[in-house]
């Protein structure tokens, strides 16, 4: 994982760290632009090429820490590179959520994940991403939702965003539909 782009915002309302992989990274970049432009949120984007590598490195470092109580605690790579990252953390990929969840405890903050759990449908990319809630609108919504929880923005902003972005809150959950 590495930082693909850093925000240049001077006085944002809040900060968001967006993690993306594969072709969904493009949706993350689109979400970044919306968050920065429409909501004045400073967004850094991280490209995560392998959650598996991060996961295994993390449990390896933790094991070494556990077995060497006398030594200084080491940080797993994910924690190390994210240690100065501010704000909320959103991960989006084209795979099931369990994958980004596997590094959640080394993220310095709650990691909110978006993914493609469920049997799915046959359709075009745009509709599939809407169905699985991994397009830029849902990434924006996830970030706003988490920022609301942090008290950085008000609930009305999130409500309005749902309306503005034409998201149907009564939509069926893709995991069970």
């Amino acid at each position, binding site marked *: 994982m*590495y930082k693909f782009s850093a925000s240049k915002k001077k006085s944002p309302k809040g900060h968001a760290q967006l993690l993306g992989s594969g072709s969904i990274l493009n949706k993350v970049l689109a979400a970044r632009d919306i968050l920065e432009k429409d909501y004045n949120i400073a967004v850094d984007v991280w490209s995560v090429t392998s959650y598996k590598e991060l996961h295994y490195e993390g449990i390896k470092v933790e094991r070494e820490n556990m077995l060497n109580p006398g030594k200084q605690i080491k940080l797993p790579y994910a924690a190390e590179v994210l240690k100065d990252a501010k704000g909320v953390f959103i991960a989006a990929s084209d795979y099931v959520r369990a994958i980004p969840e596997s590094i959640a405890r080394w993220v310095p903050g709650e990691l909110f994940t978006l993914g493609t759990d469920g049997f799915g449908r046959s359709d075009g990319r745009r509709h599939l991403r809407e169905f699985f809630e991994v397009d830029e609108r849902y990434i924006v919504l996830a970030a706003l939702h988490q920022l609301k929880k942090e008290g950085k923005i008000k609930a009305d902003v999130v409500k309005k965003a749902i309306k503005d972005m034409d998201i149907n809150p009564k939509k069926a959950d893709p995991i069970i539909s």
Partner: protein
Amino acid sequence: MSDEKNQTYSNEEVDLETKEWLESLDYVIEHGGPDRVKELLSELQQRVYSAGIRMPFTANTPYINSIPVENQPAYPGSREIERRIKSIIRWNAMAMVVRANRVENGIGGHISTYASAATLYEVGFNHFFRAPKDDFNGDIIYFQGHASPGIYARSFLEGRLSIQDLKNFRHEVHTSGRGLPSYPHPWLMPDYWQFATVSMGLGPIMAIYNARFNRYLEDRGLKPVNDEKVWAFLGDGETDEPEALGAISLAARANLDNLIFVINCNLQRLDGPVRGNGKIIQELEKVFRGAGWNVIKVVWGSDWDSLLAQDKDGLLVKRMGEVVDGEYQNYVVKGGAHLRKHFWGKYPQLLKMVEHMSDEQLAKLRLGGHDPEKVYAAFNAAVNHKGSPTVILARTVKGYGLGEAGEGKNITHQQKKLNEEELRHFRSRFGIPISDEDIDTVPFYKPDKDSPEMKYLHEQRKKLFGYVPSRRMKSDPIKKLDEKIFDEFYAGTEDREVATTMVFVRILAKLLRDKEIGKLIVPIVPDEARTFGMEALFRQVGIYSNVGQLYEPVDRESLLYYKEAKNGQILEEGITESGSMSSYIAAGTAYSTHNVNTIPFYVFYSMFGLQRIGDLVWAAGDMQARGFLLGGTAGRTTLAGEGLQHQDGNSHLLAYPYPNLKAYDPAFAYELAVIIQDGIKRMYIDQESIFYYITVMNESYAQPAMPKTKGTKEGIIRACINSVHQRKNHQRDMRNC
């Protein structure tokens, strides 16, 4: 029609006509020879067919040995010394399992598989299995996993394993020194086992593709034409796994006469008979002959030769053919009197044939798979057969020699304990010099190093160039890749929209053109090359075919025509992920089997990778197969239109459990380039025991240039501290990250 005509014949006329025909045939057999007989029968068959009469099809031959006794070669070794060696190995193999279970109840292990297969292996070890020597890479042997105690027991006699090793069978963790793994696992014994065979069915399919890959390497000039044989030992019950038989037609189509299957037909699997109501040997004969294999049945031992010689009217052969396997199992368990009554007693003439023999003599009439002369004849015929692969169907008894402890019984597969009386029986039956006082400790036995047994054993192995199994751990590394190959991918595409699948194909095409490693690249596809835009490679490097191209391809006029060639580089496997993965394993382990650093790139529909053939990938990890698995058109929402069973959002999660599999989901061209470049270095220069799973997608977008930020490359490829992890006793390298 035929019925009507038949009615015009009287019984006498029928008999007379049959007699005339048989006499004519006898005349031709005597004067014309076998070839003339075949020619004549073929003519007759054609005439019958032309007359509109359809003959019933059968691919079966009678239930007797395929090699008649008069065609048996003289046995080239000492039967007596070999018998003693084999007996000692039997004892030690049994002792290993019994002792392991005394130390720890329930630790498991199998006595009865090796007990049934001992003669098959020992004839191989004494006369056939060739070790590597100079530029001969050694025969490739897939040992049946459940027989591992017997293979260890032989290595113990050869001095390759110690008493302590044998004591540590199935005790790899809580002992000092080297433990012996339950089954063949190269990960656990990287200088010994080559192939992971114990997930049943995988050994045979991997063997087929390995035999084909040997030919591929020879046809492409990557290894000398030495015709190393590939032996696959498997169980009859194992053939119910679809993988075991699923690729046998490829073996025949590719004329793999370097391939020999030995199927140990002890008629039993774990729960009960393999085919209680049928005959597994006959069933397999039909299947393999139908697929174009050379089938050698080894059903009966030499004890039966004289009886069969007396069988002028074919009644004994008839009886042999009509008894089902469930009954044959009864004959083993219930003894000579039962056998006389139920087998021989069916026809009075047969009963008369054996009236001079005692019940005990009847019970001891040996089966083919336990008779070294019969087994030698079969192996010898197999290694000399040309034009097609060979399968040997050897009839044996499961738990042979265990007596009351389990010979032929349904519980025998699970038998791990023998009481004192059973141990004594075993010892006396095989003549192991262990006293009654010592018997209960089940001591391992090794004859003095100057004994005839030990001298013979080493001499035979010396003639066959050394000891097996043995695995090469290190190969000659490749030269460092030219960084320039990847520059264009680091630069990005500006506004030009491309998909990572296209980027991958471009990287592959450039690697194929590279002077150093181009020839080592092995692209493997299961009929999806066009899906991934790889069809340009057809023309560039050709599709491998052992016969070249015997037709003009329909698209010959186009630039990118479907080119097959004897030196073609692409393995176009057709619609078989299991087969393609087996090819990948053969190519990915060639560094070890042939000291050739072939670099497989197996490109497949990502949903039909780990989800479909995960067990083979697990075996690949165990065998430390190197290379790249490319999951194409990946991503549950990125692959449009294909729906529920194609759109993959699972494979990266499924990649987690494979400890040495690196899994990457890159977004951009430069990420993909960095990962592949680093992978080639780590696997083929640093020789790490890792392999790669990378997903590529078919969504086109502008590919950005690689950010100049420090740490980007490292961030792309790894998240780890580089530390070489070494296991005790051997040097298998894997950075633990």
